[in-house]
């Protein structure tokens, strides 16, 4: 099993979710995060004090899935999340040693 972590732009979440659903992905976990990268933040001014906000709002998707679905899933995320502009985000892939579904105590690929 693998874990895919994808950092994407917030307004692309719906689109990505739909694409993943169509691929038969049954579960994922979503976190609101702040990203720091090549894409530059904006400047805010409050009564004469200037602030640069380096961190931009991003969405982190975490999806655990069997090895054979990794490629298709990655491709789907990249396809839907791409705008071609800087800041589109990243996909990272990790090895998962074990998975358990709490409700049924199933393990491994069954669990995801």
């Amino acid at each position, binding site marked *: 099993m693998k874990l895919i972590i994808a950092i994407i732009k917030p307004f692309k979440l719906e689109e990505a979710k739909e694409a993943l659903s169509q691929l038969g992905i049954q579960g994922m976990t979503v976190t609101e995060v702040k990203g720091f990268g090549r894409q530059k933040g904006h400047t*805010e*001014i*409050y*009564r*004469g*004090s200037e*602030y*640069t*906000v380096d961190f931009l709002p991003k969405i982190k998707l975490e999806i655990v899935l069997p090895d054979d679905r990794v490629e298709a899933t990655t491709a789907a995320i990249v396809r839907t999340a791409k705008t071609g502009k800087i800041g589109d985000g990243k996909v990272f892939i990790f090895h998962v040693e074990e998975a358990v579904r709490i409700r049924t105590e199933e393990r491994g690929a069954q669990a995801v």
Partner: protein
Amino acid sequence: MRKILVLGCLLVAFGWLPVRLHAAVPPPAKMPQPTLDQRLADIEAYINNVPRATDGRAVSRIAGPGPAHNGWMMTCSALVLFMTLPGLALFYGGLVRRKNVLSVLAQCLGIAGVVTIFWWLCGYSLTFSHGSGLLGNLDFAFFSGVDAAPNADYSPWISQNVFCMYQLMFAIITPALIVGAIAERMRYPAVLLFVVLWMLVIYFPVAHMVWGVDGVLNGLENDHARIRALDFAGGIVVHMTSGWSALALCLLVGRRLGHGREQMPPHSMVLCMVGTGMLWVGWYGFNAGSALAADTIAANAFVATTLAAAVGCSTWGLMEYCTRGRLSVLGLCSGAVAGLATITPASGFVTPNAAVLIGLLAGVLPFLACNLLKARFGYDDALDTFGVHAVGGTLGVILTGLLASPKANANLAAARIQPLIGHTLWLHQLAAAAIVLVLSVVGTVLLAHLVHAILRGLRVSEEVETLGLDLAEHGEEGYIE
């Protein structure tokens, strides 16, 4: 520390016991019953808000307050309290960081509490009883003799206790304004102790000097005033005292940890804007109410207040737009408040067109103070109490000197003030402003040192400041997810 408080608590608890009995009023000299004409003239006087025709001549059939004026002044009192609770609390609370929002609210509530108690104990008396030109006496301590009958010194048609409540609301908001300069770092007990002392040493005397019927700076009502200053609704008494004290205090307390390095944007501009709206609305009670009647002067003040607020708001926004290409909600809010603070001393004395000019300047000078002065000198006036209230208030006091006109307020045609209008009035204004400025700054420095000595420190520890005052000083969080 706590022991002192327990003691203080007991003192307050029993403070009400040795209450002075109402001073036996001297029996009025026997007076005739009023004629039909006098009775009619009394009623007309009520409608026109002028002294009773029967005053000193006959027994009035309507010796108490006039309901229209009294009702209006109770409304105004509620409006001015609304400016602090929750208006100012939100305006300031929105501007601090999330971790300190409750500390600001606690300060506003605490100030409302202790100032009210001291107003009852002695504050009202020290401010509005007869005394020297510098301070009243204790005749009205514990509100002794302060009942629903009018006090002719201040207004023929409103109850003295309503007047007393109305003035209390001013006494509450003034020290609360100071909170903006030392937000996010001063210890809660130090704030309250400082406020109590500051009221005694600065507010009550200054208010007496400027508004007391025998005050040395009361140009409008005191024939013997040394300096004939005008302050309709508190440019000197409210905005200058608090604003200049705020500057001194924020210098003494020092800058917030990370100031100038870290980002400290307002945690909720939404709250700040809600507070601004409430301030604006409440300010009608503040300015129009300062006529102490629902009369033509109140009507004029209402107009001046509206125009200055709107023009100040627009001008500050325009300044931002012209210098930075976009305009912020904080800018619009700041401009509105600056307009309101600046028109305050002038509101009952100037024509609508003069109010527009005042609003315009209020959008420019405080804007520069907040944007350039603060950056230049690097003091940490956290929420710009100095930039808006001291600069705006002082500006308004001087402009009142230049723009006051009997067209707007018939009282300015009185012999004691008329010759100054359009002439040297502005010099009197300047002198009064200078005296109060010096008093505020010097007084604040002394009191801050005193409080520092008594409580061993004005400021929270670095740890507390980092964690946030809400959790550390109040054991609460502003918001829980």
